[in-house]
């Protein structure tokens, strides 16, 4: 029965992946771009499920990693924008840096204002991509090491992550000359790798997102099936028990916290490619909480459940936003959904699906057992 369930689970993953890979055949470019955004949110759902569902770490600041990833690639794409080349210098300079230039300074990244040299390596898209993955992971490693070595757990971790995301958002808004503050990075160029251009409305970009999500789902699911994944879930249930079985509890927590941050950072980069902006709003508390709601509704105990939860809520939100009367009410609706899910469906849609299949399998195997019994009763008579 366990094996059957695993096979069904695999089937769900494959069907989902097939669906998102086939979508371009049915959607025109505007809808495809919108779906790509939703898939990015789905990826954030996966990141939340990995840390909340599997590790028991409720990160209320996942937006920090998403935002860092977004800004890193955003910087590269800002330098690739035509306006950055049109500032009267041989090398690209972001337009907002001119507005914030130090008087009499040279129009060049080296010295237009204090710290602008940090942008120099981002002229390489590869560097932006590398940093988009490395920075969130490193920040998670630093934060995780401090928190989990000190054996901080539960709601305290949530509060710390929440404080971190707000702090970094303040820093980014404050560093106006370097980050364009409130406005964020807009008017971005197109990501170009080798000969390939990732135009946000192209099928190429959609496939980049869809394949990234598929790979994330598969690798993430495999990771949870490793011995480390099992130990992680054991730690979630009772970290003391795990410790006295001889496991170095904090190393597991830090590793999966980093993995979750890496996924979120990667999602942030994809979002910048698809949506063509990076903004401090990514690090607003409400966004991080929204991600948690997606995962709760989809089922935090399941990577694909949380992913589908994110897609579902965004699809609903989009259709609601076409009815003006409901736009205002949306925040109330989503709050209500969250409360209802927490109260009546703590394991979300995935949990519901799982218990339904359990019951179906039980009935099925029960019937099979009865048939076998009937068979063996017949045999002596033959």
């Amino acid at each position, binding site marked *: 029965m366990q094996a059957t369930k695993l096979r069904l689970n695999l089937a769900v993953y494959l069907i989902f992946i097939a669906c998102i890979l086939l979508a371009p055949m049915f959607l025109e470019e505007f809808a495809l771009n919108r779906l790509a955004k939703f898939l990015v949110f789905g990826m954030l759902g996966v990141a939340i499920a990995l840390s909340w569902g599997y590790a028991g770490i409720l990160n209320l600041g996942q937006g920090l990693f998403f935002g860092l990833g977004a800004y890193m690639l955003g910087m590269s794409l800002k330098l690739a924008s035509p306006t950055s080349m049109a500032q009267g210098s041989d090398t690209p300079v972001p337009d907002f840096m001119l507005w914030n230039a130090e008087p009499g300074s040279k129009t060049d990244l080296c010295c237009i204002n204090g710290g602008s040299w940090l942008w120099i390596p981002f002229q390489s898209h590869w560097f932006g991509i590398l940093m988009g993955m490395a920075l969130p992971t490193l920040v998670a490693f630093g934060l995780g090491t401090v928190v989990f070595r000190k054996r901080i757990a539960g709601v305290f971790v949530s509060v710390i992550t929440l404080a971190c995301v707000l702090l970094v958002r303040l820093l980014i808004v404050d560093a106006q000359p370097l980050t364009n503050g409130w406005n964020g990075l807009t008017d971005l160029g197109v990501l170009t790798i080798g000969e390939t251009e990732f135009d946000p409305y192209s099928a190429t970009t959609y496939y980049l997102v869809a394949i990234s999500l598929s790979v994330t789902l598969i690798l993430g699911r495999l990771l949870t099936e490793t011995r*480390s994944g099992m130990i992680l879930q054991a730690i979630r249930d009772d970290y003391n028990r795990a410790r006295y079985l001889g496991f170095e509890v904090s190393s597991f927590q830090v590793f999966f916290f980093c993995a979750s941050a890496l996924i979120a950072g990667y999602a942030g980069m994809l979002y910048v490619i698809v949506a063509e902006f990076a903004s401090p709003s990514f690090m607003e508390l409400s966004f991080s909480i929204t991600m948690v709601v997606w995962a709760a509704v989809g089922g935090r105990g399941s990577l694909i459940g949380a992913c589908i939860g994110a897609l579902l809520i965004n699809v609903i939100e989009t259709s609601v936003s076409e009815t003006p009367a409901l736009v205002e009410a949306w925040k109330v609706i989503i709050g209500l959904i969250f409360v209802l899910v927490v109260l009546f469906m703590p394991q979300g849609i995935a949990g519901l699906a799982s218990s339904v299949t359990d019951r179906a399998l039980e009935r099925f195997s029960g019937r099979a057992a009865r048939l076998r019994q009937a068979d063996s009763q017949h045999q002596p008579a033959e």
Partner: protein
Amino acid sequence: MTVAALTLDGLGVAFAGFKAVDGVSIIIEEGELRVVLGANGAGKTTLMDLISGKTRNTSGRVFLYDTDITHWQEHQIARAGIGRKFQIPSVFRELSVRRNLEVASFETPGVFSNLSLRQTAASKRRVEEALELTGLGPQADRLAGGLSHGQTQWLELGMLITQNPKILLLDEPTAGMTQAETHKTTEILNALRGKHTIIVVEHDMAFVREVARRITVMHLGQVLAEGDIKTIEKDERVKQAYLGSKGIM
């Protein structure tokens, strides 16, 4: 020739001046099953906390065979070969019974060495043995959170079996059990006897009579007496301190 598996040398801890365990020296021989008796608050659990690294001792030393393991981290002590069952049974409630046993059987402490989908043959074999010995086979696919109290206790014992430590510290393994359940626990312990060195804290005298050869009695954080069941029953100080004048029972 007997070998000392665990040596406690003047072990003690004080909580804000209150000496919960005070200068305890005990030598446990390899393969021995030692029962620790004592009234409520005598310091039995705290003694196990000191051995397993949960509480840092303020005096004395702990030796596992020839290795000084005083002040080691919990997971290092566990890896060195000391397994522990808690007074309040603790298992991984959201995982299946089998998964609980599997996790306990994994042989390395860190995250990277466990990034593999495979489980060793030895670890699989121990899981089957533990299912067999605890009789939890029929429950193997159920969530541990749904087990009865007695079954939860057996599962935790089973996890110690798959963990396969040299020394088992068992804190009241029959607490809250019915007579039949207690009896089954006795059988499990007798099956483990000899293969592991076992230290068990227990109140249930029927159980103690069935398993004990050597008993250590603790009182107010100190060792009051040590010996076989007859010696302990006759000991005047033990009678006064703990057992009343009626003898054990």
